[in-house]
């Protein structure tokens, strides 16, 4: 117990530090983009948020499969923790994406120009469905089982959704894409560091949330013992 506490503490310091550095890089170090100006800086955290959203989903998949194979409650706690954090970052990705869209195409939701926005929103919806499912099932073991299955099905659907949304408009290179290819070195460095910082932040939050989940389980166990001890 105290050993994993150290890892979480270490990660907390590390993520705090890396986010501060990332902020400096994004606002001071990275050059201003020629066509879009300062608005472009949202790109660094926007993509990083979306990346974490997908990573969290992947972790939920792994945890779900592991749970179904072994029935170990710890995997279920991890899956739920990952979903909660993933939903936050995905929501951030959607909001920053919308802001960028407004700045670029003067539309809060450009269906035509940015299918990726649709995809990330669907990811958000899948996360929400996962949480709704968990809320409506009776029984801890059943909830874990159903959630694990849905996590697997949902993750498998993501590549299909990605492809179909992309083909839907039959468009490929957008401003976003060419920017990805022609990033100035300073921008690339900022971008990669932002990705790293966000990933560290994700794992920090994940471990903290998991610890909370375990503690909650312990509390439930204690309550149950108290109840059966005093009851009757």
């Amino acid at each position, binding site marked *: 117990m105290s050993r994993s506490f150290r890892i979480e503490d270490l990660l907390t310091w590390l993520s705090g530090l890396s986010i501060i550095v990332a902020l400096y890089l994004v606002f001071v170090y990275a050059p201003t983009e020629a066509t879009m100006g300062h608005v472009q800086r949202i790109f660094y955290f926007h993509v990083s948020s979306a990346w974490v959203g997908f990573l969290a989903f992947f972790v939920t998949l792994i945890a779900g499969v592991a749970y179904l194979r072994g029935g170990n409650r710890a995997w279920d706690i991890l899956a739920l923790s990952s979903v909660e954090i993933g939903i936050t970052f995905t929501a951030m990705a959607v909001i920053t994406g919308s802001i960028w869209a407004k700045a670029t195409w003067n539309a809060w939701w450009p269906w035509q120009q940015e299918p990726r926005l649709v995809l990330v929103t669907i990811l958000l919806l899948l996360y929400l469905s996962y949480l*709704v499912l968990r809320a409506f*099932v009776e029984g801890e073991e059943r909830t874990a089982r159903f959630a694990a299955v849905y996590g697997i*099905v949902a993750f498998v659907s993501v590549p299909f959704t990605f492809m179909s949304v992309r083909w839907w408009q039959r468009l490929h290179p957008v401003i976003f894409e060419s920017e990805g290819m022609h990033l100035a070195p300073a921008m690339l460095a900022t971008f990669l560091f932002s990705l790293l910082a966000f990933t560290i932040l994700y794992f920090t939050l994940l471990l903290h949330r998991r610890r909370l989940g375990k503690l909650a389980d312990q509390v439930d166990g204690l309550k149950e013992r108290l109840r059966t001890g005093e009851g009757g």
Partner: protein
Amino acid sequence: MSYLSKVLAIVWKDVVAELRTKEMFSSMLVFALLVIVIFNFSFDLRVENIAQVAPGVLWVTFAFASTLELNRSLALEMENDCLDGLLLAPMDRSAIYFGKMLGNLIFICTIEALILPIFSVLFDLNLIQPSLLLTIFLGTVGFAGVGTLLSAIAVNTRAREVMLPVLLFPIILPVVIAATKATGGILDGLPLGDIAHWLRFLVAFDIIFLVVSYMTFDFVVQG
């Protein structure tokens, strides 16, 4: 009994039960008609060429009708503990999955077959074309494949009927997109080569989700 005959036994059970009561059928058909008519009116008021929205309306109707059918099919199993009976039967759990899936597929396809002529009349389009029928079939397999699994989950929750759309719709979005684009292409008279990638996409989706559902069905019904 061989595996196949066990699967068919379940299909037969569902078909006979439905033929006797026609309960699911009638409600699905009426619902689908209402949906089409409502769409017809609501779009007609603003849209110049109603044929433009026809593919979308068609697939939304199919999606809603499928949801009704999937819900009903599993709900029937819960009554009188039929599902427990099936689980106790000496057969692989996957046979139950395939049996229910085929039953769902048959029912949804039957309703679609009834809807298509009515749709053709209301929207003034020819929908009885081989390529279109293939598209509809592939899309329906997609709905039934993953829908059977998700309905087994949904029927075990407190929200019951409401839970299935919440779970199902984000998952089958690729099917709706692919099927709508393919349908639109066919109605526009595009050569098959132009929309073939959508059909291949549907086939891939169907296969993968049949496999995933088959593999995870056991975990859903076990307790």
